[in-house]
């Protein structure tokens, strides 16, 4: 594998997250209804960061949780058994505006599984999708509402998102095969 190409450095990543948080606040004037749910594992850090910025914008804490989609995936038979992560649903989702946070959107199948998983947990008034990187190659009619950066990629390339909380540093990198 060739050297990773930096797509976002820590400052650019921080700006992107702040911008998305402002867009979420702008789109949802009733901020008391907002709930952020991160999709494990990277999406959890993304949701927590968004929640932190949004709390400042809205002037009150915004509930942040995690939504595991593994049991709802449509490719369970085609891959090694994936890790199942515990869920953390901080509030009753009925009538709320749920913003799903995932670090990368690719095929759209994770987002579809997330919609199914949410279905079993309640009936939010509205569901929106925030993603740090949109790398294209959608296989389903799904679009993110909030995107940090669009990155055109080839299908065999890889996007690695590193989070300070797990990797010690913030960075988004593109890896060519």
């Amino acid at each position: 594998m060739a050297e990773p190409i930096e797509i976002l450095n820590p400052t650019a990543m921080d700006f992107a997250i702040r911008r998305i948080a402002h867009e979420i606040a702008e789109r949802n004037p009733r901020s008391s209804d907002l709930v952020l749910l991160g999709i494990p594992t990277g999406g959890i850090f993304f949701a927590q960061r968004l929640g932190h910025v949004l709390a400042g914008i809205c002037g009150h804490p915004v509930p942040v949780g995690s939504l595991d989609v593994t049991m709802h995936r449509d490719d369970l038979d085609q891959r090694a058994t994936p890790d199942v992560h515990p869920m953390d649903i901080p509030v009753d989702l009925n009538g709320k505006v749920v913003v799903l946070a995932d670090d990368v959107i690719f095929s759209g199948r994770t987002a579809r599984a997330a919609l199914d998983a949410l279905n079993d947990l309640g009936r939010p008034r509205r569901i929106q999708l925030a993603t740090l990187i949109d790398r294209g190659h959608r296989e389903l009619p799904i679009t993110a509402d909030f995107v940090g950066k669009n990155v055109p990629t080839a299908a065999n390339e890889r996007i690695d998102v590193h989070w300070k909380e797990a990797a010690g540093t913030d960075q988004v990198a593109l890896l060519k095969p």
Partner: protein
Amino acid sequence: MNWNRKHLLDIESLSAAEIMKVLETARSFKQVGERAIKKVPALRGKTVINLFIEPSTRTRISFELAAVRLTADVINFSTDSSSLKKGETLKDTARNLEALSADIIIIRHSAAGAPHFLARFLDAHVVNAGDGAHEHPTQALLDTFTILEKKGRIAGLNVTILGDILYSRVARSNIWALTKLGAKVTLCGPATLVPRVFEDMGCRVTHKVDEAIENADIINLLRIQHERQRKTMFPGIGEYTALWGLTKQRLEKTKPDVLIMHPGPINRGVEIDSQIADGARSVVLDQVTNGLAVRMAVLFLINGGVDAQGAAPSVPDPRLGKN
């Protein structure tokens, strides 16, 4: 770590990491059982067959419910209404079930090794739900899950298994699981049912009940298996209760935070005092609830597992990952 096993046949061949993988996965499945909608589509379109050649209610119902909650279709097969009564061999029965495209066969059999035998020629996944006096792997997994949930750890804990060890598959599976995870296991009961040979499995063997339970963090009581025993193993039920039963007097001499476990069915007043079975230290019903989560985890994991004999996992498509 990744789970790579196609079957769950015993605990003996599992590594500590594999046992922990099941327990961690079960934590997520326990959450599913606490929701309003207690069902996930992970095994949608799969057929699970409960092949119970030996009677069982709780294990069969637990497996059945686990499969249903994973959205599989479940067929229950019981000996009474089957061709086994007409002389069909186990191999033929299993092959017939597979010809009906069973994906997972859960087997309970009175002969040790029956699940291993099926796994040798079936393409379906095989889960051992108890084979003779050999192993009962999901019981050991749900017991360790319950201990971990209540105590927060397994390593270093003193676990006493009290009762009929010799004829108990629950004891054997528990011994393997607990010693692999670093617990200190003590076995106690009548010498005829707790022979010294179990020391070879890394356990302490004693025939003095007060000594066995004094420092225990967990007391796991095993049922006297009337169906497997000859009458000569101990003189009588009354004497068993007097010498080995967990009575209120005996419980007073144990640690205040000791957990009392029992795989069921309980013989009230024989191996355990009825009030203790319903008391604050008893986690008997937690074991039943956790059994469901553990069995969901097992079915989920083996469904995605392929072992050395199975086909290799298909070439990973980069799109199948999260990105």
